Structure formats: structure tokens, C-alpha cells
């Protein structure tokens, strides 16, 4: 395989970085890795490093003692699942030898190689950030934290998920539900459309006179043909999608009147689910690893920041080329990053990786679809491996959709048991 100039640069960056951050001499204490974010990326990377080299001291910093998973939280909103099934703790992570610290990271001293929490400072040889997303409270006029208590985003699972579910159950039959979907990039590209499907399913089965209006800032979206075929078949009277060019972009919202405004006018909603624009979790910005987009450019071999050596970033916070922001991606990146960190700590050269992503979406209880991809570093980014990946066939029979719904749930159980079990 011909080595491109970019991949040569990538390799030499990794080596230069290994030289800058050498493994502590044998007489010294074990190398220390600190990880921020006990979600899909961070918990996976912490455990994987410990598994690959038990001698490394690994500390995981997470703000909350209970993690509430977003994947499958759309089923909670649709009334098909209990929020408890989404929640996990860190007992098994501790048992795997990871030092779990419950607290919020508030600063990074990159030259001194320390991470700051309110009451403690943690020194590191390598820092891995997997902070997920922050919602941008400055991007959609009218939408801020207070507005979210009336017009839930439910884009970080937990109380917000319950709030949206409760608003839907409390709504009278005949009420209009409106969802606002942001432009790319955002967490979980097929997520809004899975949610739209499951809200429509709830309306069809429990509030048949109601309807969901999806106002979108885009003209195209993930698995679009599959979703739209399913909507035509399953929810012709309960779901309407308005594209960007049809006037779907929401320009402002008013929580007082539960109204969303587009170029074409005002839309009052009984229930409004506003998914705002997003950016990397705040600690990434504090660490200096975000660029003007609000996301983090990384080396696709090591996931080391392009901006600050010694700090790696994985998961939703990254600019990962063709890889979408998903839990599957975060877990897949975590394994590659863990292998690279272990190598770099040993002064060795990380290997060229390949990564996988698969996002299942549940459109109805017995109806699953998926998008899958295989990725490799090329031209300095993560690119699709040509000829691989794609979406479920458009003409698949009902039993194939049913099988994919079963595999979707199996995926959730398997990945959460690998990460938290």
C-alpha cells in the first residue's frame, strides 16, 4: 500500500508525541492515564487500557454516579421501555481495576499535565477526554436552559427523557406535537427520525387524533429512504416531515407560548421537542482541544488532539470524518485509542486501525433498520472503506425488519454489558 504524505505526517506526529511523553522509567511509579467522561467512550477506554496493560494506573472522572444511556431512550419516550433499563452504575468498572472518581473536571493544565476538579488535582501521563456533547444555549433564539424545562430536548437522557414522555402522556388526544431538528453535525444522526417514528407510534396507538410535525433544518438525513418508506406504511396520518427547503428550519422558539417560528410562520405546539445545535462537552474547550467549530480535530490513528499533545479525544466530541456520532462509534474509537495510548506509553508506534460503526433504529416494536460502516485513516481523517457499509435493503421483507429489531435490542444489551457490566 502506498504511504500517502498525510499518513506519513500522522505517523511522525505520533512518534514525536511518544518522544515528548515518554513512559516513566521503570523505577518510577506506573504510568497514569486519566479519563474524563464515564459514558460510552470514556468508560470503554478506561477499561480497555486496564485490560491491555494492568500496570497502567487508570482514573475515570465522571460527574454523575448513575449513567443514563441515550440509545433506546427513544423507546422510553414512545412508552415502550422503562427509563430504569437505561441506567447503569460504576461498580463493575471499579471491580475491573479502574479508579472511578465522581466529580466534575473543571480545568486542564496541559503543560503541567494535570486535570483539575473542584477539590483535587490529578496528574497524568496521558489524558483522554470523552465528554460527549454540550447543548448550545446560544444558538437558537429563545432556547436556553430554562426553556428546556418547558420544551424538552431529551438529547441527554434522564430527567429530560421523562419530561418529554410525561408531556406526551398528559396531552389531550388531538394535540399537535412539534419536533425541531438541527443541522449537521449533531449527536446520533438517525436519532431524531427514530424518535419521530416512536412518537408517531404512540400517537397512532394511544392518541389517534394527534399528529407529529417534524421541522428540520436539513433536506437529507440518515437512512432517509428507509424511514420515509416506513412512515408512509405505518404512520401516514400521524407524522409529517418538513424539510429545510419546504420551510422546516426553526429560527426561534418561545417557551411562554410553546411556539416555534420558521421563515413561513409560527407554529404553536401542545408538546414541543426542541433538539438544539450542539458542541463538544465544555471540558474540551477548557482543555484547548476544540477548534472554531466547537468540536475536536484528532489524529485518526491515535485520537490524540491535533491541537494539544498528550490529550486524546474520542466519541461525540471529535471531528471524526465519516464516522457518525454514536455510542457504537465511541466504543469502537475507545478500543483504538486505548491500544494507541498503551503503545505510546511504552514508546512504541501505534498500528493503523480499522473501526466499525452500526446504528440501529427502531421504527416500530417489530421494525428495525440499520446503517453500518467500516472506517480507516486516509488523508488525515477517518474515511469509509470503499465498497463496505450502507443501510438495510429498501425492499427487505417484514421478517427481516423484525430480525433487525431483535438484533438492535441485542446490541444494546451486549454493548452496555461490555461497557458497564
Amino acid at each position, binding site marked *: 500500500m502506498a504511504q500517502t504524505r498525510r499518513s506519513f505526517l500522522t505517523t511522525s506526529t505520533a512518534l514525536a508525541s511518544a518522544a515528548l511523553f515518554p513512559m516513566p522509567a521503570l523505577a518510577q511509579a506506573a504510568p497514569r492515564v486519566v479519563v474524563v467522561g464515564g459514558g460510552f467512550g470514556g468508560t470503554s477506554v478506561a477499561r*480497555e487500557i486496564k485490560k*491491555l*496493560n494492568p*500496570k497502567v494506573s487508570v482514573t475515570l472522572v465522571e460527574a454523575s454516579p448513575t449513567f443514563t444511556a441515550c440509545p433506546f431512550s427513544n423507546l422510553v419516550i414512545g412508552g415502550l421501555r422503562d427509563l430504569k433499563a437505561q441506567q447503569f452504575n460504576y461498580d463493575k468498572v471499579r471491580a475491573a481495576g479502574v479508579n472511578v472518581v465522581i466529580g466534575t473536571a473543571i480545568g486542564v493544565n496541559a503543560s503541567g499535565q494535570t486535570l483539575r476538579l473542584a477539590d483535587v488535582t490529578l496528574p497524568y501521563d496521558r489524558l483522554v477526554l470523552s465528554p460527549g456533547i454540550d447543548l448550545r444555549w446560544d444558538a437558537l433564539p429563545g432556547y436556553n436552559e430554562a426553556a428546556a424545562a418547558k420544551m424538552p430536548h431529551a438529547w441527554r437522557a434522564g430527567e429530560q427523557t421523562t419530561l418529554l414522555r410525561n408531556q406526551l402522556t398528559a396531552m389531550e388526544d388531538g394535540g399537535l406535537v412539534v419536533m425541531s431538528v438541527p443541522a449537521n453535525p449533531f449527536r446520533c444522526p438517525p436519532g431524531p427520525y427514530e424518535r419521530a417514528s416512536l412518537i408517531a407510534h404512540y400517537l397512532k396507538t394511544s392518541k389517534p387524533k394527534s399528529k407529529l410535525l417534524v421541522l428540520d433544518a436539513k433536506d437529507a438525513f440518515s437512512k432517509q429512504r428507509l424511514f420515509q418508506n416506513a412512515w408512509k406504511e405505518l404512520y401516514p396520518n400521524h407524522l409529517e416531515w418538513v424539510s429545510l427547503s419546504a420551510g422546516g428550519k426553526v429560527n426561534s422558539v418561545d417557551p411562554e407560548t410553546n411556539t416555534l417560528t420558521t421563515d413561513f410562520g409560527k407554529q404553536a405546539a401542545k408538546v414541543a421537542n426542541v433538539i438544539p445545535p450542539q458542541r463538544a462537552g465544555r471540558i474540551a474547550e477548557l482543555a484547548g482541544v476544540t477548534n472554531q467549530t466547537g468540536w475536536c480535530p484528532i489524529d485518526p490513528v491515535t485520537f490524540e488532539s491535533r491541537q494539544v499533545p498528550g490529550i486524546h479525544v474520542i466519541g461525540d466530541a471529535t471531528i471524526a470524518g465519516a464516522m457518525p456520532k454514536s455510542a*457504537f462509534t465511541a*466504543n*469502537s474509537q475507545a*478500543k*483504538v485509542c486505548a*491500544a494507541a495510548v*498503551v*503503545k505510546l*506509553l*511504552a*514508546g*512504541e508506534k501505534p*498500528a*493503523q*486501525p*480499522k*473501526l*466499525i460503526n*452500526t446504528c440501529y433504529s427502531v421504527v416500530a416494536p417489530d421494525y428495525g433498520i*440499520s446503517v*453500518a*460502516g*467500516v472506517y*480507516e485513516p486516509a488523508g488525515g481523517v477517518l474515511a469509509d*472503506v470503499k*465498497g*463496505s*457499509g*450502507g443501510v*438495510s435493503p429498501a425492499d427487505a421483507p417484514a421478517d*427481516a425488519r423484525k*430480525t*433487525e429489531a*431483535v*438484533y438492535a435490542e*441485542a*446490541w444494546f*444489551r*451486549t*454493548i452496555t*454489558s*461490555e461497557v458497564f*457490566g
Partner: protein
Amino acid sequence: MKIVLGVFAATFVFSASGLHAADAPPGAASCSGCHATNAAAETPVPKIHGRPAAETIDVMTEFRTDKKPSTVMNRLAKGFTEEETRAIAIWLAAQK
């Protein structure tokens, strides 16, 4: 298909990083996102860790060439060359 295992012995090195198992070849670590390594995990997705490499190679080849239908594996198997698939299969066979 004849498999030359000897070529891959080179991946089983004990490096300064203190790894006691071979480094996972490209892509192999991602399989466990769906194929549980934990025997206790209840899942309809078939177990692939600890399976004879030749079996895995055969099925993956059928997925890659669309000889065997599947929901998702055809799309994933096409992301790996014959050589990469072989390396993954041999590594998987060595996992518990």
C-alpha cells in the same frame, strides 16, 4: 481454503508495552460491540470468540462475496480484505 497460520505467529510478540496477548489486528476489537465476549450475556447474535479460525474465515468470505445472506454482516465483511479477515479470525480464535 488452505490457511497458513505461520505468517501470523509474528503478531504474537511480547512487547515492551507488557501486552500478554497479541495485539488485536485492525477491526477485531470492534466485533465485540455486537458479538458478546461475556458467555453469560444473553443474545441471539452468534458467538465468534474462541471459534476455530477456519470456520470464521469461511463464513466471513461467504458474507463478503454475498454467498451467504445476512442482516448486517455482508455490509461489514466487505470492509476487510482476505488478509485482514484471516488475521481477525486467528485473533478471535485465541480469545476466550
